[in-house]
């Protein structure tokens, strides 16, 4: 409930909406009395949750959302339809590659489905396993010249197969997004948008096998991100070390 000695916003919202037990609510009351930051956050939610019966989104909004979801679903289905026959084809290609020793082809960078999970900021629940753990390796991220305001650390936990990045100094970039890339030993590259909050971001990767991955890097991309890095690079981390 308490993060960095402050009460999470979710708990404050539940408190205001009467969703907590009496003892939890009393604990929050006691904390808020002495904590200016939580008082401000509580005041924000108090005003923000005052509902106005007449204020509604337009009736067409649901239609628009359904339309977007429909497009997403049909894209996914199309992908699955393509993938099924491709499995057979892939088998043949693998045999051909093995026969002709064309392993170099695999070194070409390509976008593949990720075999990892990504969590960001408040969704990261397991960062405690990185703290004071002797098996965890840490190193600072290396920002590129144009982004020297950026600083951060990377922690690699071989026990849990997790990589945690903390970045600060992510200046606001109008009409662009920060994106993070993870590159495996075969040169396959996958990107995720970085959710920046107050100039900082925390990203946790949970991978299947750490030894499959080689480097991570950041870049600036058009809004919504790109399929592969196109913009100026922001930082670099060698995770093989």
């Amino acid at each position: 409930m308490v993060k960095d000695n402050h009460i999470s916003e979710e708990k404050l919202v539940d408190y205001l909406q009467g969703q907590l037990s009496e003892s939890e609510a009393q604990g929050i009351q006691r904390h808020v009395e002495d904590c200016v930051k939580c008082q401000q956050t509580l005041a924000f939610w108090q005003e923000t949750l005052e509902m106005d019966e007449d204020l509604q989104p337009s009736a067409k909004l649901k239609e628009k959302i359904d339309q977007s979801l429909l497009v997403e679903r049909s894209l996914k289905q199309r992908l699955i339809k393509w993938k099924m026959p491709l499995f057979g084809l892939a088998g043949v290609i693998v045999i051909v590659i093995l026969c002709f020793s064309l392993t170099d082809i695999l070194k070409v960078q390509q976008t593949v489905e990720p075999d990892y999970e990504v969590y960001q900021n408040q969704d990261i629940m397991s960062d405690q396993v990185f703290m004071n753990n002797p098996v965890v390796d840490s190193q600072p991220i290396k920002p590129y010249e144009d982004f020297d305001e950026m600083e951060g650390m990377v922690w690699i936990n071989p026990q849990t197969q997790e990589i945690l990045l903390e970045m600060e100094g992510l200046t606001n970039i109008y009409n662009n997004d920060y994106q993070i890339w993870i590159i495996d030993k075969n040169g396959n590259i996958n990107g995720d948008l970085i959710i920046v909050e107050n100039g900082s971001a925390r990203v946790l990767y949970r991978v299947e096998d750490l030894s499959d991955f080689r480097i991570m890097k950041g870049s600036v991309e058009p809004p919504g991100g790109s399929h592969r890095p196109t913009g100026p690079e922001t930082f670099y981390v060698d995770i093989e070390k």
Partner: protein
Amino acid sequence: MDDYLLLEQMRAGNQEAFDEFYQRYHQYIFQIAYKVLANRPEAEDITQEVFIEIYQRSDQYQASRGSIKAWVAVKTRSRAIDRLRKKPEVLADKLEDIITNASPAADQFVIEKMEKDILRAALLQLPLSQQQAIYHMYYDQFTQKEIALTTNRPLGSVKSSIRYGLQSLKKQKSLLRWIGSGGGDK
């Protein structure tokens, strides 16, 4: 049916569960987004973004952090504040709205979430008197009357400074664009 079951069914791709979830939360999400952004089309856009994210990433919900209603509220707040950071013209509208708005604590919270350099970069483009008036209003939380007293200027001229200052901020959408939007494969 409780929210958690609805979320479970949405995860399984159940359209009716999504319809019910929409019914329960569309006004709630929209109003939170509107409170932060003070801009109806942007608030609708954030509402759409939040619903799609919830539908696709319902597995992000962690019961230990609070109820689904609280999760939805915080997610909406977070997306709306991100939008203000990314769109200076929406931020300028929001600043203008604050003068007449009756939610001072909510506005103060939103302004504090903005990186100071975004606000400062916009302010620096204005004449000094306008900069001072707006700075006093946001950072020192002075009323227009207090600004007039502190700066020894007539109230009408302080009001004009703020109004012209904010209008100029709105015109300077591109000033904060420190990286062009060219390139990319999207």
